[in-house]
């Protein structure tokens, strides 16, 4: 159904329509959206932990963590609130390298990421490995600011950005797909922007 009188903004080449998932618009800002106040976690206090179910497997201090192989990526990111941003630059430790350092093969099909403010989000483990995801510690060449999830956030850019948990403190491998914070509140369990999987039932 065409909306009377609507033709859309001048859609110049920079919008690159094939690069934009359905229902998204391009921004050059980097909007900040979160459900509560910004946690302030000092790097000396930061810990990151891998668990299988309730069982801790390995944890890293900040000093340990930054000795792991650092990967650099440039990716487009897509927020469920409709904005997309092209070519964002990140550095961090890929989930595959993290698992290798823990001498762990992916133990279950599903992962729940946990954050310092109590936030959580679920991602199939296969969507984290093979270079698809990392624990990011720099954005745009600078240490990740707390507003954008620093000291470290999960980065899973092929899914809606609520899956890229800010202030991440650990990954927990789960037997079943366990709904995280927004998934419990009506958002999609998987969140593929190309299938416009914003809300449960989409």
């Amino acid at each position: 159904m065409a909306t009377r009188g609507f033709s859309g903004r001048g859609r110049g080449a920079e919008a690159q329509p094939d690069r934009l998932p359905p229902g998204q618009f391009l921004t050059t800002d980097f909007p900040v959206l979160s459900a509560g106040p910004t946690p302030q976690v000092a790097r000396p206090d930061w810990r990151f932990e891998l668990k299988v179910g309730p069982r801790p497997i390995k944890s890293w201090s900040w000093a340990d963590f930054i000795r792991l192989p650092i990967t650099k990526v440039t990716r487009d990111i897509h927020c469920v609130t409709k904005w997309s941003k092209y070519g964002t630059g990140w550095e961090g430790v890929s989930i595959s390298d993290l698992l290798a350092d823990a001498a762990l093969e992916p133990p279950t099909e599903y992962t729940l990421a946990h954050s310092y403010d109590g936030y959580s989000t679920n991602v199939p483990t296969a969507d984290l490995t093979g270079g698809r995801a990392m624990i990011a510690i720099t954005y745009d060449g600078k240490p990740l600011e707390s507003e954008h999830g620093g000291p470290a956030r999960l980065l899973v850019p092929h899914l809606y950005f609520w899956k890229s948990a800010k202030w991440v403190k650990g990954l927990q491998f789960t037997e079943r797909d366990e709904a995280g914070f927004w998934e419990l509140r009506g958002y999609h369990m998987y969140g593929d922007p190309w299938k416009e999987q914003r809300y449960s039932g989409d």
Partner: protein
Amino acid sequence: MSQPPPTAPKLIWQSAIVVAIESRTPTIKSFFFRLARPLHFAPEQHMDVRLTAPDGYEAQRSYSIASAPQRNDSIELAIERLEDGEVSPFFHDTVAVGDEIELRGPIGGHFIWSADDGGPVLLVGGGSGVVPLACMLRHRAACSSNAQMTLVYSARTAADLLYGDELRALDTRNDGFRFFPTLTRELNPAPGVRLGRIDAPLLGTALASLPAPPKVAFVCGTNAFVEAAASTLLELGLPPAVIRTERYGG
């Protein structure tokens, strides 16, 4: 605190008819929609809006529902005109009464208060960030709730104070609602009107107007506004888990 809404079936786009448009402030208009299908929502949730061009191009945005949920066949969305926006200027400049607009919702499950939750509750809004808070207050009034609720609301000028008359009228009822407006750029203030940004003393006064520390504090506005207000509330001793934020734009 409010449980998230029960799992809903797939949210389908529905066509809604614009039945009225009201200018509220120099930059904000209210759009009143009659819905084809009744909408059950909690204060405050939002609606996704979809505009489609003749060639199939789509633009989508989200807007907070301003009206109380007691009415489920019509809703109000208060839309601020953003200079470089794609959708809000279309609403302000082109949409007319009688137009059909596609909506779907309700969406959101965290920035929610219902009268059963009770108080005390602190509301802090900046500019158009007051819309979700107004929805909660309208719901509270419709339920004749006496839940203790205090609103601190910062706007640029008296003309920008959205729902100003309505909020001042609620404040005179002496039913547990207190209103603390403040203006940041008003050159001709009426007597007694507070000037200046929200700061620790103002939030301290607001907290002191509640009989006990708030169960929940809802903070809504631009990201810069929310960061400042939330940090000040943390400095004043509110636990982080009590503070819920909704951030508009960047």
